[in-house]
């Protein structure tokens, strides 16, 4: 694990005290037909939580089929824990123009 990221993770855990686990949750916001951030670097074992703020539903569908959310209505969330390293591209299956990448180390 990247030592700088690990330090950040430890800091986050101690600051929130919510998840006494190896890695803290990371958020991705969906707004105005975009994922933010569009590129995310995380450590293996991290849970990513997506939240849709748009009035239009969106999904999180990995290109390789590893994960796929149901359609998220406004303010709905979906989470997935990345346990193995790799580069994971995903799209919104309703609006496939929406694309983002998660890199797990």
């Amino acid at each position, binding site marked *: 694990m990247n030592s700088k990221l690990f330090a950040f993770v430890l800091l986050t855990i101690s600051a929130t005290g919510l998840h006494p686990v190896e890695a803290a949750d990371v958020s991705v916001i969906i707004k105005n*037909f975009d994922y933010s951030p569009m590129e995310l670097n995380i450590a293996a074992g991290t849970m990513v939580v997506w939240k849709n703020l748009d*009035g239009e539903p969106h999904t999180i569908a990995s290109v390789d089929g590893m994960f796929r959310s149901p359609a998220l209505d406004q303010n709905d969330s979906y989470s997935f824990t990345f346990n193995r390293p790799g580069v994971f591209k995903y799209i919104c299956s309703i609006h496939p123009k*929406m694309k983002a990448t998660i890199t797990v180390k």
Partner: protein
Amino acid sequence: MTDPSRRDALKCLGVGAGTLFTLQAGVFSAFDMAQARVEDMGTPLFLQISDTHIGFNRDANPDVIGTLNNTIDAVNALPHPPAFALHTGDVTHLSKAGEFDTANQLLSRLKVSELHVVPGEHDVTDGPGTEFFARFGKPSNNRGYYSFDAKGVHFIALVNVMNFKPNGLGALGEDQLTWLKDDLAGRSASQPIVVFAHMPLWTIYEPWGWGTGEGEQIASLLRRFGSVTVLNGHIHQIVQKVEGNITFHTARSTAYPQPPAGSGPGPGPLVVPPDQLPGMLGVTTAIIGEKRRISLTDTTLA
């Protein structure tokens, strides 16, 4: 649930509302329906309904069940109801079983002998589309695409929401394109063709994915036919194009309008003043007249 004034306004649907588009030799001519004689109207062949989005309940239309019911009442009240109906997708908003059940219950009130349904991307967010195909997969052996004939017209149902091009346009995929080639091969060029699918089969606006990647290949297969009508939904507004003998036409939604191409951050629900909403929702009816002319009529709930 239903605004009485809206219901009264619906009574005029089909007897003067809208514009009749007559397709003859591939060229649209529009004339006011008030001047159309009954014998000019031909036999109503089918209804196109689209983008019912059952499950949607946001500001753009908190009552999509009500507006669908209004639409069905208006269609059932037509002096000559269409023989069957095509639904060009987005039956539901979130692919949920309960939404499909509600939609089926509502659509079963349509006084038509058959309902042919192609999926929209909102109907298959559960991956291979288990909920959609459990209900509408039978005619196609769960492929989604199939063809049938009615009154001498060849109808082709296509699915362009389960494969996507890298630029976000819809796609048929190789298997379906091969099937389409085979389905059209050897068919007489004089037979009228109606193709229906959810996303536009020609590119209307690529940045929002309003098109189909193999559009040109599809059009090239259709060009030899004398009368081709391509019907789509997806964009919740009417856009049409005539290219040779091929007429491309998108239908209104019964649920909510969307902005014109490129207006705003993306193709989401468009909130309009409540009194303007009925004028932005509606259906398309098609008649087959003499010399097998196919005419499309767009009517709104206003």
